[in-house]
């Protein structure tokens, strides 16, 4: 996986191993207690520091070695328009959101359909921690330790048919719980989609946790998508519906501004957003005098995923 390619990363940025190990030890200590609640999380206690701990293994192969951003940065600075358009809105307005009980409807071009309790969705999948780069289409970036499992493993359980060329995801539509959905800033519910081969790619992560704990509401609890080589808006949050479809789905941002946001949304320094350059990014968490960093093709995951798009004109299919 991304041997953090030649783009040099200052040694000071790499988490000192002892720090990382001590965090692991701490988690391990809590694990015995946590097992019972791991998959049947408690439903409350999504407080910022006391999300229920999760049981997981660390997937080093699929983790970058850059230091993750702080929990505070990750959980207080993000886009989640269902709770407002400011980046501080999600953490301020998602606290009353109830990610439990939760069910996910699966339908479309697949043999196994139905509405499933979140527990049933999650049960068979051992969790892994993966430290991924996150590149927002707005030209800022973070490094995030997510906890989840490969989306492909989940998809196989529903036995998609030969007609299933794409997977479409929907966010919960709940005007009471998600105040932003009362505005017309986007077309609700938020929808996203992946081509089947993208969805089955081992890097694509169904995500339930952050920093070893149950995902905070503002980061997309209880179930969200992470596709690390694409711009962050592909990572749809609070998923309650998965649909297998034959035609490429029209996704929320692509519908809202088709000249600015495409279906693929692969991180690409060579294709600018009409209103800003995508060649560089500001990395969150440093000093205000830090230089912008060069943005990497496919966000640094080119070795793994570039072959998915061979022969495609990425300027056209942005």
């Amino acid at each position, binding site marked *: 996986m991304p041997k953090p390619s030649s783009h040099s990363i200052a040694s000071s940025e790499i988490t000192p191993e002892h720090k990382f190990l001590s965090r692991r030890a701490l988690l391990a200590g809590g694990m015995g207690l946590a097992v019972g609640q791991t998959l049947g999380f408690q439903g409350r206690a999504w407080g910022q520091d006391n999300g229920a701990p999760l049981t997981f293994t660390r997937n080093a192969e699929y983790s970058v070695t850059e230091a993750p951003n702080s929990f505070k940065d990750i959980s*207080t600075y993000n886009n989640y328009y269902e709770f407002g358009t400011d980046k*501080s809105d999600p953490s301020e307005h998602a606290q009353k959101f109830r990610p439990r009980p939760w069910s996910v409807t699966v339908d479309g071009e697949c043999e196994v359909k139905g509405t499933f309790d979140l527990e049933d969705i999650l049960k068979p999948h051992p969790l892994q921690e993966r430290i991924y780069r996150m590149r927002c289409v707005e030209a800022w970036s973070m490094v995030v330790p997510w906890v989840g499992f490969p989306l492909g493993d989940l998809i196989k359980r529903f036995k998609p048919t030969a007609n299933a060329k794409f997977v479409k995801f929907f966010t919960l539509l709940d005007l009471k719980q998600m105040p932003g959905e009362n505005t017309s800033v986007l077309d609700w519910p938020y929808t996203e989609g992946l081509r089947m081969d993208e969805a089955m790619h081992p890097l694509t992560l169904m995500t339930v946790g952050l920093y070893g704990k149950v995902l905070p509401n503002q980061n997309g609890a209880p179930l969200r998508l992470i596709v690390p080589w694409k711009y962050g808006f592909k990572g749809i949050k609070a998923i309650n519906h998965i649909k297998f479809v034959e035609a490429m789905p029209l996704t929320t941002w692509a519908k809202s*501004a088709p000249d600015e946001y495409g279906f693929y949304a692969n991180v690409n320094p060579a294709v*600018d957003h009409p209103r*800003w*350059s995508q060649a560089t990014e*500001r990395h969150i968490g440093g000093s*205000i005098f830090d230089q912008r960093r060069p943005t990497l093709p496919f966000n640094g995951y080119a070795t793994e995923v570039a072959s998915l798009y061979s022969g495609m004109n990425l300027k056209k299919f942005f």
Partner: protein
Amino acid sequence: MTATRSTATRFVIKPLVFIACLGPAIHLGLGAFGLWGISLGADPVHTMLHSCGNWALKFLLITLCMTPLRDMTHMLIWQRLRRMLGLFAFFYVILHFTVYIVLDQSGHLNAVWQDIVKRPYITIGMLALILLIPLAVTSTAAMQRRLGRRWTRLHSLIYPIAVLGVWHYWWGVKKDIREPLVFACVLTVLLGYRLYRRYRRYQASVHLPRVATQG
């Protein structure tokens, strides 16, 4: 009476307004270095950039409120504050631009130039800044006297500048245009007032002679 009033303006009201106008800059300056427990969030550069631009527009609109306020209240204090407020608008525009070049673009002038020529919302923002320079330079009382009527004409550039500024903001936001919309509405009212005043004056000038002949 007038003397004490203008003394109060000069030594009390103006300094107080001056300090208040510096408030946002001081807040951002302290926050940039995490002093006094002030934080600008996870992306302080973005906060500074956006906040300076926002204050520049607010000060532009506040400046444009001074003449209507004077007309409505018949108090000269508004007139006396106008220059300072206008200069603060310029000050925040310059801060906005400086944060953009030095912190946001890390001083890469080539990237800045690319932005200016390739991205219309930056082009018009840049244009607004350039047009503000002669206004700031000629803002002194001496310049005002020297330029006479031409000063008024030159300074009516503030109207297109304000339009460019709000337009720059409108085009720059990703999707949620509610805030630029508020600025645009306020600006429309303020410009509308000028048109109305002109119309009234025109009417007066047309009607006056007729009244005179009748007499």
